[in-house]
């Protein structure tokens, strides 16, 4: 094994844990260069981690929420327009959703963003299980849902 391979292997183990590759271990025992590299790997992390997390300066939240309020004005207009076409798009979305869930391919087709949003909202409205969760949990879970999860949840809803 070359020094470079051994060092790459050390970095991998260093980042991901687990046991070191036996070949790398053998090389390391007989190679002063790689032994020094191993020490420096620890030393480097120690140094970088000494840059501990800092805090934002006072006024950060105030500035942020002021910017957020500014931004909210724009999406509000979009939602207003959206509500005009919601009944029609909702029906289309429900149809497309039915096709996807019952007979569709395992990956969702490439739909427009608005339709995708509509599908999410339509689904979520029906999913009491989500609305009963703590908000942050709900957000986290929504971020992880895939098609199989949604299929299961919808089936459970129908059975109740």
């Amino acid at each position, binding site marked *: 094994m070359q020094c470079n391979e051994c060092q790459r292997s050390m970095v991998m183990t260093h980042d991901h844990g687990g046991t070191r590759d036996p070949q790398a271990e053998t090389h390391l025992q007989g190679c002063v260069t790689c032994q020094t590299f191993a020490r420096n790997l620890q030393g480097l992390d120690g140094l970088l981690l000494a840059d501990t997390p*800092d805090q934002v300066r006072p006024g950060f939240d105030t500035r942020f929420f002021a*910017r957020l309020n500014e931004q909210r004005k724009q999406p509000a207009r979009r939602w207003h327009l959206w509500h005009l076409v919601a009944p029609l798009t909702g029906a289309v979305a429900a149809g497309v959703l039915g096709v996807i869930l019952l007979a569709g391919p395992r990956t969702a087709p490439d739909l427009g963003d608005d339709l995708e949003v509509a599908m999410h909202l339509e689904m979520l409205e029906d999913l009491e299980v989500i609305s009963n969760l703590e908000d942050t949990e709900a957000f986290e879970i929504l971020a*992880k849902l895939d098609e199989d999860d949604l299929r299961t949840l919808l089936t459970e809803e129908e059975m109740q």
Partner: protein
Amino acid sequence: MLAFQAGSEEAFVKLYRLYRDRIFNFARRMLGDQAQAEEAAQDVFLKIYRAKDRYRANSKFSTYIFRVASNHCLNLLARKEHRLTDHGEMADHPSNNDDPESSASRSQLRSIIAEAVRDLPSKQAAALLLCLHEGMTYRDVAEALDTSESAIKSLVFRARETMMKKLSTQLPGAEEVAHAVQ
């Protein structure tokens, strides 16, 4: 639907509070400047807010937000003026509760590290910081940086290699370092 939207608004604020400091510190380490990092962190949350109904359903929220943050910082760094900013500026914004001595040494350490990070190719820097400070797996870093896991292995390795050379005088056994990194 209204209830859900109201709910997600609250959820957003909770997520903001959960991730604010992490995103800020990631941006600070990437950009090397407190004021720019604060603005960048705010930009990230504004982007998240705008796109809150458009998650890729199969991605973890932490990966998603660091993907947005990485992209944003990489874009900022790609603009030359950010590269040319005096990173010594960090010392101008000490935290309120620091005593002057520890603040000075921390500021010195930060400026040494910031300089080394700044000299890395931006994507290497992002990969290393996500791995080291966020404890993300290569797979999650790959997703955040929109590349392959094997590319991340290389990026992280090269970042560490370069940092060892750059920071050789700061590491224990300093005189040996230059020899060890080949």
